[in-house]
């Protein structure tokens, strides 16, 4: 698929167990995510969902196979190149938000911009925070924000560099149902409005039901 933002081929990742035996956690023959497409990747706990996102983000390297993001096989890049690539081309939303506690909402978003080497006066960061409904809480630190607000900061941070691909690991996992639904709707809307492809891994039926396309991990093998 020429317009695929994300393409995985023959991807294998194993870990060595405590007893020394190899445990294969990722075995994907082929998977593609088109531009602006939104897919929920479903799998039970321990099925390797987080490992897969780390492989897509270039945080982990596969044992074999290919991970193409926006046409670049990131497995062929050096670690430093992968870091730079991740900063500019991939937005990552974590289950536990992973905000830096010493930084304000705005600073957390600006950090995402900084490592991508983007220059600017922070207008985009402010605009994104306004978009996610935090225009009045720019200078609040994470501790002063509700969990729902924290996850919205994380969404703004993931989108600040206008990446073609946004990946999210159980983005509503730390939120109650009502908050989770609101955050998910927001994430999908912002990605759709800005033309980002979105891949969410989840085991939550409510999340899956919000997506037009759901792929199960087992189907990829």
């Amino acid at each position, binding site marked *: 698929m020429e317009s695929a933002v994300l393409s995985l081929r023959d991807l294998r990742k194993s870990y060595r167990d405590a007893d020394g035996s190899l445990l294969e956690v990722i075995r994907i023959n082929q998977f593609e995510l088109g531009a602006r497409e939104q897919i929920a990747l479903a799998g039970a706990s321990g099925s390797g969902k*987080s490992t897969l996102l*780390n492989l897509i983000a270039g945080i982990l390297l596969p044992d074999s196979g290919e991970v193409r993001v926006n046409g670049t096989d990131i497995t062929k890049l050096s670690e*430093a190149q992968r870091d730079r690539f*991740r900063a500019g081309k991939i937005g990552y939303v974590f289950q*536990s938000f992973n905000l830096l506690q010493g930084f304000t909402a705005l600073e957390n978003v600006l950090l995402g911009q*900084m490592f991508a080497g983007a220059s600017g006066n922070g207008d985009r960061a402010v605009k994104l925070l306004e978009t996610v409904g935090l225009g009045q809480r720019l200078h609040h630190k994470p501790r002063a924000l509700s969990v729902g607000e924290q996850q919205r900061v994380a969404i703004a941070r993931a989108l600040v560099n206008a990446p073609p691909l946004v990946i999210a690991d159980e983005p509503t*996992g730390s939120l109650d149902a009502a908050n989770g639904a609101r955050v998910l709707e927001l994430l999908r809307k912002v990605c759709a409005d800005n033309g980002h492809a979105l891949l969410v891994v989840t085991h939550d039926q409510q999340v899956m039901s919000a997506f037009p396309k759901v792929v199960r991990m087992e189907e990829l093998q």
Partner: protein
Amino acid sequence: MNLITIVLKNMRQRALATWLTTLSVTLGVALTVAILLIRHGMQNRFEQSTLGYEMVVGAKGSPLQLVLNTVFNLDISPGNVSWKLFEQLRDDKRVKFAAPFAVGDNYKGFRIIGTTDTYLKDFEFSEGKKFTLAEGRLFNFSEDTLREAFIEAGERAKDREARERGETPPPRKEREIKRPFEAVLGATVAQDTGLKVGQTFIAAHGVEPSPNAEEHTANPWTIVGILAPTHTAADRALYINLDSFYEIEGHEIREKPGKKEEPAKPEEKDTDPDPGQISGMVLKLRSELHALPLYRELNDREDAMAAFPAVEVRKLFAIVGNVDRVLLAQAVLIAIVAGVAIAVSIYNSMSERRREIAILRALGAKRPTIFAIVVLEAIAICVVGAIAGLLAGHVIVAGANTVLMRVSGFTVPAAQIQPVEWLVLLGCVLLGTLAGFGPAVRAYRTEVAENLAPTN
């Protein structure tokens, strides 16, 4: 948003540890700087003060004591030399300038020096620099009245000796003192005591102040002039005409100089028409070539010795240098311990910060960037500590100046920045780099994936 912002945020997050480690660096740097400034300043001041004093001559004893007493107004006088020797040297073709000194009294701790007006008029205390009057005039001095004073002082000594032997001294004609009792004050004396031209003061016996010191109430000196500052020990002295010095009770001339162990026979004293004695003298020579031969000649005498102030000061600082090297080593050790404390503090915080580091990496920070953030944090602590330490060092010096002034008669410029301070700052950057290296390596190696997992 830049690396410095991240570093400062990290420091603020661990505020207590940051301030404590910064404080330890401040302490080490402050002590190092204070020791360096005081040493450098004192050596400068001492060397500056010796510039005009080519050679000093005094009683046999310690040359350092002679220099301290004559040039720096410190220590006690090692003894007396004869006025005749002064005359000989003054008339010596090799000698360009000679001035006598007599010490033994103080005013509120400031030394009173009996000398000639020639000293205040013609002596170059530094290259091309002579004393100038800020106010008033110089005292009047006459060698004729000085000779009279010597004779009278000798007679008073004989009377006292007779009384000590239980004899009645011969009746003497009531004296009428014609000599002026005039004084010219050094700049610091005038400033510290508030004495002004036209006022009088009473001298106390002894070169150091003492609550039990006898005061020469019968002979107050009138202040006739105040010298402009010289930034040498001369600023802390009161100069009086030498002839008035011998009028004072207790300044009688009782024995011949250089023969303390063998008291002169009475007939020798009687035939000596000029029993004058002084504490010492300063000489300037016509040529440097005369210095060594004259020095040897004087040191071959039984009743006098010569010393080169510059040489003695260098010797003194060579001795003092060993002491302040030990102090300096201690201060540097404190700074090193502070560096270790920084390393331990940041290293220990790495466990708590693994998640933050993983987040930064996930956001695209490269490993070298993480390494740099940690090293910069250690450097920032050291630099902030160093700057605070440099300031504190200057404050310590300003505070120490009171003590220095009392002990040595000098102060050290506390507001002046010395080149060595830039080296101290550079050393602190190096210390920070070394202190941050271990924790930075640990941060560099932080695994991203395993530290990003949800904590709950």
